[in-house]
């Protein structure tokens, strides 16, 4: 037997569920995650799934995180191996001293196991075959059975899980009974035949607090509802589809006229992404708040329209839930690889506003704020989420809203303004901030109409190819983006425990891993100041931060260091001062990875006489 001692960890370990997709495992796994949270212990689960409906391997990786870190940790302390196809590599992945839970109905040769892990077998299929006759029932209840067994193995209070099931199926007593029975079967069988509890245990804690457990796509949709969006046009694409589905659900709940059941919103599934963004631009031009949700390939298709909205100055909100590119890339994996495609989308000299939410809470906040920004700036605004934030439930601050808040509709001239004789030049910079006044179609019978176009025009929207008119307009657009720098969410800074000559810039879903990496580095005596960039164009604080540090790591989840490119280009930064820390295999970045890369680079710089500004490629 093993000479490696079994792991003993309380409230801080990683469980990985290896399943076959389409077998109903996702909801059982989520139930288990909620059970751990029901014990007051934070969890950070992530679905790692294929672009497929049924039959391929799928994983649910769950970090039980009593310490509160919500990034991906890596490693696997307990493997719940439910997929024979991936058995060997799943078993190989377990940390030495870890645990393997499996369905022992069929005998497996000893060679398929490892002697440095604790093997926990339960004849799940056999129990299901005995207890249930319907094949689908056998499949679904097998999942609940293992949840029951894990409850016993990890020492989770049974009533907690029971309560969750009652809540989940409230109003459907039969389902509650059936599920609780399966849960109990698994629980009791584990108690009877396995050494409960094992070395990994969940103990009651108060680490969850008042936080909510929600995914970023739902939060983006809710932000759009609170932000006053009335028109959504979209084309299905992973991983953004559920933004629109959630928008529909929230709208049915919150936006149905109580008097007549009519809809205060319109959702159109378009024929493609070109039509989706076209509808968004048409609706916004006509004074409604409109948005689409898409991912990389959709962004590519929308390019021409982004240019039109930029140049004709029409508001638009785009939720880009990024996935692995290029091309079809990795449709069910996460990346931050659309920054350049969005920041400079479309031909000619264009520039767009990007927002980078770090979690569902900010998806909600930025989701609502994006509409104010789009109308204030009369330009497309991209909310740059990604699959990791969008499709995984995570713990975050509860949503909040100030009822005194009013929508910022930007500079819109009313019929009264026009009657009062105000000078209306659609592209005339009257305030010096680069933002001109617009009118909404239908405002006034004989004043304020203009012809929007993608062609060049003068300040009064008349077609013009005169060089002076073109230059006036382009300079005004540049001023508008200087204005934008002050309106977008500012960066968030966190300084090291001690004055540091190194900084690290990061954004979006890298945030939880970065927070943990910061602690790991501090513990090792490596001090790095952090700056989380939340928007493009960059606020002045971003360039000030770079100027204040000798070297700045730019941590991101793409291969070509796109944020670094943007910083160099926009801030005219010496490229040698910005060091790449890049993670792009499609899985979410981990704290260990970041801390390792930064520690190596700092160590190298200290150990050798080479320039401290030497570039460290990942």
């Amino acid at each position, binding site marked *: 037997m093993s000479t490696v001692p079994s792991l003993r960890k309380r409230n801080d370990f990683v469980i990985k569920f290896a399943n076959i997709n389409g077998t109903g495992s996702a909801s059982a796994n989520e139930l288990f995650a909620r059970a751990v949270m029901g014990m007051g212990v934070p969890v950070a689960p992530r679905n790692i799934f294929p672009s497929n409906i049924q039959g391929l391997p799928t994983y649910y990786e769950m970090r039980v995180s009593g310490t509160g870190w919500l990034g991906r940790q890596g490693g696997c302390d307990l493997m719940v191996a439910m997929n024979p196809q991936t058995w060997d590599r799943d078993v190989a992945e377990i940390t030495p001293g870890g645990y393997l839970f499996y369905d022992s109905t069929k005998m497996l040769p000893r060679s398929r196991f490892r002697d440095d892990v604790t093997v926990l077998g339960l004849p799940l299929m056999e129990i299901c075959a005995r207890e249930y006759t319907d094949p689908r029932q056998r499949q679904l209840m097998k999942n609940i059975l293992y949840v029951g067994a894990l409850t016993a193995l990890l020492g989770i209070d049974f009533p907690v899980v029971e309560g969750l099931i009652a*809540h*989940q199926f409230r109003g459907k007593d039969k389902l509650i009974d059936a599920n609780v029975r399966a849960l109990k079967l698994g629980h009791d069988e584990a108690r009877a035949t396995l050494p409960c509890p094992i070395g990994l245990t969940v103990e009651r804690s108060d680490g969850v607090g008042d936080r*909510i457990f*929600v995914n970023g796509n739902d939060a983006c949709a*809710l932000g759009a*509802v*609170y932000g*006053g969006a*009335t*028109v959504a*046009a979209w084309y299905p694409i992973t991983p953004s589809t559920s933004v629109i589905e959630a928008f529909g659900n929230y709208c049915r709940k919150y*936006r149905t006229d109580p008097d*007549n059941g*009519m*809809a*205060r*919103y*319109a959702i*159109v599934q*378009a*024929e493609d992404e*070109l*039509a989706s*963004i*076209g*509808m968004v631009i*048409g*609706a*916004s*031009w*006509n*004074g*409604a708040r*409109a948005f689409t949700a898409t991912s990389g390939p959709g962004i590519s298709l929308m390019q*021409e*329209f982004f240019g*039109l909205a930029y140049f*004709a100055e029409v508001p638009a909100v785009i939720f880009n839930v990024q996935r692995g590119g290029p091309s079809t890339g990795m449709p069910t994996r996460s990346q931050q690889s659309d920054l350049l495609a969005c920041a400079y989308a479309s031909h000619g000299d264009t520039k767009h506003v990007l927002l980078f939410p770090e979690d569902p809470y900010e998806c909600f906040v930025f989701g609502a704020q994006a509409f104010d920004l789009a109308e204030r700036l009369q330009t497309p605004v991209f909310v740059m989420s990604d699959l990791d934030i969008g499709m995984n439930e995570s713990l975050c601050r*509860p*949503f*909040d*809203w*100030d009822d005194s*808040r*009013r*929508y910022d509709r930007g500079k819109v001239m009313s019929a009264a303004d026009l009657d009062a004789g105000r000078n209306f030049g659609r592209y005339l910079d009257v305030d010096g901030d680069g933002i001109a006044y617009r*009118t*909404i*179609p*239908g405002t006034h*019978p*004989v*004043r304020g*109409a203009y*012809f*929007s*176009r*993608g*062609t060049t025009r003068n300040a009064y929207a*008349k077609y013009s190819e005169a060089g002076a008119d073109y230059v006036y307009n382009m300079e005004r657009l540049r001023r508008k983006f200087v204005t934008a720098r002050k309106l977008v969410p500012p960066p968030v800074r966190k300084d090291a425990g001690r004055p540091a000559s190194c900084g690290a810039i990061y954004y979006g879903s890298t945030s939880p891993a970065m927070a943990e990496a910061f602690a790991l580095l501090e513990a090792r005596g490596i001090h790095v100041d952090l700056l989380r960039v939340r928007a493009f164009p960059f606020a002045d604080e971003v360039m000030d931060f770079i100027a204040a540090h000798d070297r700045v790591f730019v941590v991101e989840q793409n291969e070509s260091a796109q944020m670094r490119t943007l910083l160099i280009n926009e801030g005219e930064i010496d490229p040698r001062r910005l060091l790449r820390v890049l993670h792009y295999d499609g899985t979410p970045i981990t704290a260990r990875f970041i801390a390792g890369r930064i520690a190596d680079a700092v160590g190298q710089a200290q150990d050798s006489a080479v320039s401290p500004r030497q570039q460290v490629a990942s």
Partner: protein
Amino acid sequence: MTYLAKPRLLRPDTPRNALGYTRRDYEGAISTLCAGCGHDSISAAVVQCCFDLDIEPHRVAKLSGIGCSSKTPDYFLGNSHGFNTTHGRMPSVLTGAALANRDLLYLGVSGDGDSASIGIGQFAHAMRRGVNMTYLVENNGVYGLTKGQFSATADKGSKSKRGVVNNDTPIDLVTLAIQLGASYVARSFSGDKEQLIPLVKGAMCHRGPALIDVISPCVTFNNHAGSTKSYDYVREHNEAINRLDVILPRDRLAVSYAPGELRRVVQHDGSTLYLRKLRADYDPSDRVGAMNYLQERRALGEIVTGLIYVDADADDLHHYLNTVETPLNQLGVAELCPGAEALAALNESLRKGA
């Protein structure tokens, strides 16, 4: 094109419509198209139609794509907002605009390249979605702005100005629109304003997608012998199936046609379409019959014009979406934002789980 600006001063006896507007109030910038371009006649028809129907100028939103045809919204309805969008994508922008405000009249202006070539997808989907709009295709069979290449409506065997023969099968937007669910479908000829103006009026009074395919010869690149979109060719092959009069509820009309010659269709807004039959056996409410008729006549080399199909009871996109009567762009924070209390309740449910 004309270089002469029209005089600003109006004669005291200038005709005014019921709202007090003159035709001038419905005109736009001076056209920059070639002298004799069919498109200018269509612009004039739109002006006449809006004047006659007493439409407030700002109640119309005009949208177009790219091309000679798509430039024309600048040349009419100068008091209406217009949007010259991207090539072939006007239908989606119009759809979005229509979603935002159901109270305006939407006029889509496009060409054969813009709708049948690059924009065939958006054309098709806007029709099948039931967008409430008047969609004018100014169809000349060629790309004018790039100097005479064939478009997808050019007839097989027709010849370009340089003598190149078109081998591709043409797309008939009228047949396609009927098949895809447009509820008012007509074809006309820019050289026949007596026919065109009432057809545009009927379309603007219609609820649902209304398509008018207007054959509009390109005098510069497609008006030669061998073209099937020239003035001469269209005049020779034009087979009108009916003549239309559009009567608004306010009008009093003594109809003096013999029974059987006239068909009366009451539209959703109360306007009445009086169709004088030129083909006794033609029934514009028969969708399948209309498609068959078009194919039969086409095989004989005829260009069928008139109101080809109409369904006055059709529903539109807003009906399908069950959107509120108040235009969506006029709803405020009170109607749109669920508020802090609802959010607190939602937070609570997100703590407990689904």
